[in-house]
Structures are given as structure tokens and as C-alpha cells.
């Protein structure tokens, strides 16, 4: 049995919140630089150039890449042989609280969706737990901005709609999103499971590095098709026109019911931020 203290968790969550909001992951910055070379729209190039400069300023001065420092989503994989001293959930939220305060990050969470009073410390996080074998605790954090979150969608397709239905729905969602989610976007797609499972898969797929495909050949093929089709929408960087609308399309799948084909599309902006740690 491995013991992990609340303090260890608080410290890593705090550091990860600050780090990921200020330092763009290299896979994303590399993709932005490559897109700058390939983009044919002059305005699009200018936007990509601004994004590259923005990331450099943010990283060197440790200020947030984007003012929407998001609502923190955590994926926690906890080994069965791990004992967490105290409350894991409280520790995660305390880490978020400290990270957002000490890192001068924006507090964007309201305590009640109807009454809408700001909690003042960006808590609570949205936490997805998974119990796995072994004695390690893996935590991934993904602070999610709502410019892109708001453009996400879920649809319960029928099995007969198949791949064509999936492609239509993903493209329709990206097209409707237009300039709002701060393109170039990263498109997370969850297919299968139940309604909520598909949504969680879509979110989880955003943790994947740009350039890494799904290991299943038919899913990797679908990712490739969707990326190419999304980039034909013309939306471009900042939505001002161009051939760089998406940097990646990531798909995760899960077994589903004989009667169903749930599809979730979780759109993420060019500043897709995530980090993971294993304790």
C-alpha cells in the first residue's frame, strides 16, 4: 500500500494550474508554427503569428496565455493499492484554489448555474475518477475555457447513420462554431458508450498530444478524414478565413448498445492546456 499525502496532491495541482495556463505545450506551439508556414491567407498568417508571439510572452513572463484560464477538469486514475491520507477531492480543490490565487489566474466559476455567484477561487474542479490496478496516482488537469466549451455538442445517432452520420455531425458542429472557439481548434470526439460516456471520452481525447493518432487503424483513418474536411470549411485562424481551422481531431471510442451510436464533440481552442503527473 502506497501512502500519498494531501500536501503532495495540493502542491502538484497548484503548480500544474499555473504552469499549464502560462506555458503552451510544445506540441501545440509546434503545430501553430507549422500552420503559420502552411497557411495561405495573409490575415490567417497574421493571427497565427500573433498566437506564436503571445505564447512566447506568456511563457517568459509567466502570465496566462489566455485570460479565460478555464474551469479545471481533472482526470484521476487511482491505483487500488494507493492510500490517500485525508480527502483526495478536498486536496485537488485546495490545489486549484492556491494555483489560481498565487498564479494570478482568473476565477471563472460560479457556485450555482442559475444564481451565478462567483466562488472567488475557481473551485470546484470537475473531477472524473477511475480506479485502476497498481499503486500509482495519475492526475491529468485540463483547464477548459468556455469560448470553445460552449460550441461543443452531443448527438445520439442511430447505428444506420454510421460513419457518414458521424462525419456530418462533427463538421456541422465545427461549422456552427465558426470563429467563436478561437480557431485553430482541437476537436475532441467521443463515440460510443452511453450519452455521458461519449461526452467524457470527447473531453479525455483532448489530453492527447497533437500528431498522435488513435491506435485503431479505422479510427485513425476517421481522424485523418475529419481533420482534412474540417480544414476545408474555410473558417481559418481567428475565423477570419483560411485553411487552418483545426490542428487536430482526436477520437476515443467505447463499446455501445446495439441500438445506439452516441457522438460527442468537445471543441477546444488553440490554447488547449493540459498537464499530467504521476505520484
Amino acid at each position: 500500500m502506497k501512502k500519498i499525502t494531501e500536501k503532495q496532491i495540493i502542491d502538484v495541482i497548484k503548480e500544474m494550474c499555473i504552469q499549464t495556463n502560462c506555458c503552451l505545450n510544445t506540441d501545440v506551439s509546434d503545430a501553430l508554427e507549422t500552420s503559420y508556414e502552411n497557411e495561405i491567407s495573409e490575415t490567417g498568417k497574421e493571427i497565427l503569428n500573433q498566437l506564436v508571439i503571445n505564447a512566447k510572452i506568456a511563457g517568459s513572463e509567466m502570465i496566462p496565455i489566455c485570460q479565460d484560464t478555464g474551469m479545471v477538469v481533472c482526470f484521476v486514475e487511482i491505483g487500488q493499492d494507493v492510500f490517500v491520507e485525508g480527502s483526495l477531492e478536498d486536496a485537488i480543490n485546495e490545489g486549484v484554489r492556491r494555483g489560481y490565487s498565487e498564479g494570478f489566474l482568473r476565477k471563472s466559476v460560479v457556485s450555482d448555474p442559475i444564481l451565478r455567484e462567483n466562488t472567488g477561487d475557481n473551485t470546484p474542479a470537475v473531477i472524473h475518477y477511475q480506479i485502476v490496478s497498481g499503486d500509482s496516482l495519475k492526475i491529468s488537469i485540463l483547464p477548459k475555457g468556455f469560448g470553445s466549451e460552449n460550441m461543443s455538442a452531443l448527438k445520439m445517432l442511430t447505428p444506420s447513420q454510421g460513419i457518414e452520420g458521424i462525419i456530418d455531425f462533427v463538421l456541422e458542429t465545427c461549422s456552427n462554431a465558426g470563429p467563436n472557439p478561437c480557431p485553430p481548434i482541437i476537436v475532441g470526439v467521443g463515440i460510443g458508450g452511453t450519452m455521458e460516456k461519449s461526452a467524457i471520452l470527447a473531453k479525455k481525447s483532448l489530453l492527447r498530444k497533437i500528431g498522435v493518432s488513435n491506435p485503431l487503424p479505422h479510427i485513425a483513418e476517421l481522424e485523418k478524414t475529419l481533420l482534412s474536411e474540417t480544414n476545408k470549411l474555410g473558417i481559418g485562424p481567428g475565423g477570419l478565413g483560411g485553411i487552418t481551422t483545426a490542428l487536430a481531431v482526436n477520437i476515443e471510442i467505447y463499446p455501445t448498445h446495439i441500438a445506439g451510436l452516441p457522438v460527442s464533440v468537445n471543441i477546444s481552442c488553440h490554447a488547449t492546456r493540459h498537464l499530467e503527473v504521476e505520484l
Partner: protein
Amino acid sequence: MSISVTFPAKRETLKDLKAGDIVSISGTIYAARDAAHKKIIALIDKGLPLPFEIRDQAIYYVGPCPEKPGQVIGSCGPTTSGRMDSYTPKLIELGLSGMIGKGERSATVKKAALEHGTIYFGCTGGAGALLSRSVISSEVIAFPELGAEAVRKLCVKDFPAIVVIDSFGNNLYEIGREKYKAFT
């Protein structure tokens, strides 16, 4: 080359700007987003004084990060303008001459903007660190209880933006998208 635009600005001075023009905005602009709009409209409905005179002004849809010690303002890129659409026509009627944000506007906002000559500028979403460098001063002038959503008076210099919807109703989001759809 970018065109210099200074706020406050009379609408007549902005009428020759064209969708796609790159502009540098200087002068005074006001930061207001969702909750502040709701409160401002409530004040208008009750006939009460407003945090700032709307006529000839530009509103920037932004909720900045807190400033670090020594910083004028934290990261301050645009938020999605569309969420302000239900409040905007009233502000346009009161003389608003500029709107700065990102993303599409509703048909009602576009109609009101066209009728009154209000210009919609876009700036780069997710470039909040870069944009913060163009803000010279920032002061909360109303609703401090809203935190990041408070109304701020911002002095800006060479704030980089682009004309998205001009006084003739041309819309760069539509034009740009149509143009590059051709490259399929």
C-alpha cells in the same frame, strides 16, 4: 499597414473603414462583459445614471486576469461577443460607436449596427498576453463586486484589431470563410 482609430469616436469618422482593414486602436475604451451588460441594461431601463456615457464610445468584451504586482492588467483577450447580443441593440441606439470582441453577432445586432453605423472590431481570441501590452492603464469604474466582470476604463495604445463588420454591413467572417472554402 494598420489604420489608426482613436476612441471615443463619432460614427461618421469610422464610416470609411472596410471589413478586413487592420487597425490600431488608441484612446479610451470600456471593458464590459456578460454580468456588466445585464446591470447596465437594468440601469437604462430604470432611467438611472450609467457608469459611462455610451455615445461615441467603444466597448471591449473582456474579463481580464488579475494583474501581477507591477502589471497594468493581466491577460486580456476578447470573449465571445455573441453572448452580449441580447443587450447590444439598446447600447447601439444610445450611440455606441465601436464594439471589440470575437465571434459572430446576431442578425438583430447586425441590423442595428448597420442602421446606426456602429463598427464591430475583432481582436485575436487567446492572445491575451500579447494584447495586455497595448493597455496603458486600467481602472475599475463600476460593479467591483463582479470581479473579472467589473466595468473598466482602459487606456490603450496601438491595440491590434481588425474591422470585422463595417458600416456597410460587410462581414469579414463571411467573406473570409467563403474565400477559403474555394481552396478545397
